[in-house]
């Protein structure tokens, strides 16, 4: 799991380093979109929806947040940033983030 995540992480460098590369190529990073999150129930939903706009590091570098904070983050992504996450998946993502990157309230 970690191998894939970090190989993808590093793949940004050569892609962006090629200055003439069209913007779509430099920022899509297909390798970055898989398996970058810790394994666990809900990781697939997080992979599907969160990685559309940002790397998993936006999650993994956060301090351990409790459920209320992760819920607020997911809500912000949906309401303020226009993430089209169905209710069921959003709830799953909150559970996943709390379990994998969180702390008890």
């Amino acid at each position, binding site marked *: 799991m*970690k*191998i894939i*995540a*970090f*190989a993808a*992480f*590093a*793949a*940004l*460098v*050569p*892609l*962006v*380093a*090629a*200055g*003439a*590369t*069209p*913007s*779509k*190529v*430099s*920022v899509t*990073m297909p390798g*970055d979109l898989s398996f970058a999150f810790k394994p666990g129930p809900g990781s697939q939903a997080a992979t599907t929806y969160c990685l*559309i*706009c*940002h*790397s998993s*590091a*936006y999650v*993994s*570098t*956060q*301090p*351990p*947040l409790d459920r209320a*904070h992760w819920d*607020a*983050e997911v809500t912000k992504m949906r309401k*303020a*940033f*226009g*993430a*089209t996450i169905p209710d069921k998946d959003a709830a799953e993502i909150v559970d996943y983030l709390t379990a994998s990157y969180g702390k008890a309230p």
Partner: protein
Amino acid sequence: MPSSRRSFLAGSAAAVLGGALAAPASAQQMVRGVFANGDRPLIAFPQKRPLMVLTPRPPQLETPFAVFDQGAFTPNDAFFVRWHLAEIPAGIDAATHRIRVSGAVGKPFTLSMADLQRMPAVEIAAVNQCSGNSRGFFEPRPAGGQWQDGAMGNALWRGVRLKDVLDRAGLAAGAKQVQFNGLDKPTLPGTPDFLKSLDVDVARGDDVIVAYAMNGKPLPLLNGFPVRLVVPGWYSTYWVKMLSDITVLDHVDDQFWMKTAYRIPDTPNHSVAPTEGGFATIPINRMVVRSFVTNIADGASLKAGRTAVRGIAFDGGSGIESVEVSSDGGTTWTPAALETDYGKYSFRRWNAAVNLDAGKTYVLACRAFGNDGGAQTATPIWNPGGYMRNVIQQYKVSVA
């Protein structure tokens, strides 16, 4: 839960084994965290030396703090990077780049880079600091970019006065704010484009420039090539990169990045209790005064004797009036000598010395005062955004 450091080390080693890294990320190419989840891999992005990677996409890259000990100006390839939206052009042709000036103006027009070069040029040394620089030190810790202290830099910016550009267009009678947009775009249609606005009187200030050079060279792409806004004294959220649109508004900007994001409590020191709610907020604006020791890190082991202490100070544009150092945790203070003055918006380097006895531990500290009377706080402020930290820095050292 395994530590993030171990995860990173394992990941880096695996990536090297997999042959995926252009430059191997060994265990040495990691800056250890000073707070939970704070370890950062050092990776070279285009036109950059290896910097501390908070996030690769959109990129948030932090300057290793040792760089700030090397001079008053931050090299372009070491300058921090922060983008909000993932769709950043990887290739830009400066020859075809245009800035559209429109909105509540008498005469809308379009500027090419050649047009800018033909206008009167100004140069100004100015610190560019992220609103959330040092956010990782907030306690309790807010969500957001978990910076240590390296989301800042000082450069000599060259460009034309925004005022000259606006005057060429002619502001309409009802002009209230000037809104700026860059080439970066959101991935999803529902994500607000990154737009920032300044009041007309701020935008027309003598020191706000449309900058096409940084430390005598073109801007690195990740710092906004070919042209960015420079708002000396103000947090970098307003320094819009890859500037493409200047739109004069006849109203106060009410879109997300002004009305909801980058707001600070309208309270003393912009601080609130972590449990507090219901306070009024205002858009973040001018920077508060800060100072740092650059040659001694917290936790350092030093030799006994007369010991040089040096660092940097800056504020929101009044200029540094004085810097003081302490070796007793802030009980007593002695003045530092200020070095070359590159202007009121620049890093100001300073020098001092303290006497250290063998076998003792000390808490070194530094504090700066602005010409406007601005001072650093003795205890950390707190706000939900993790903005505007300017506590007096302390450095615990032991002496052999």
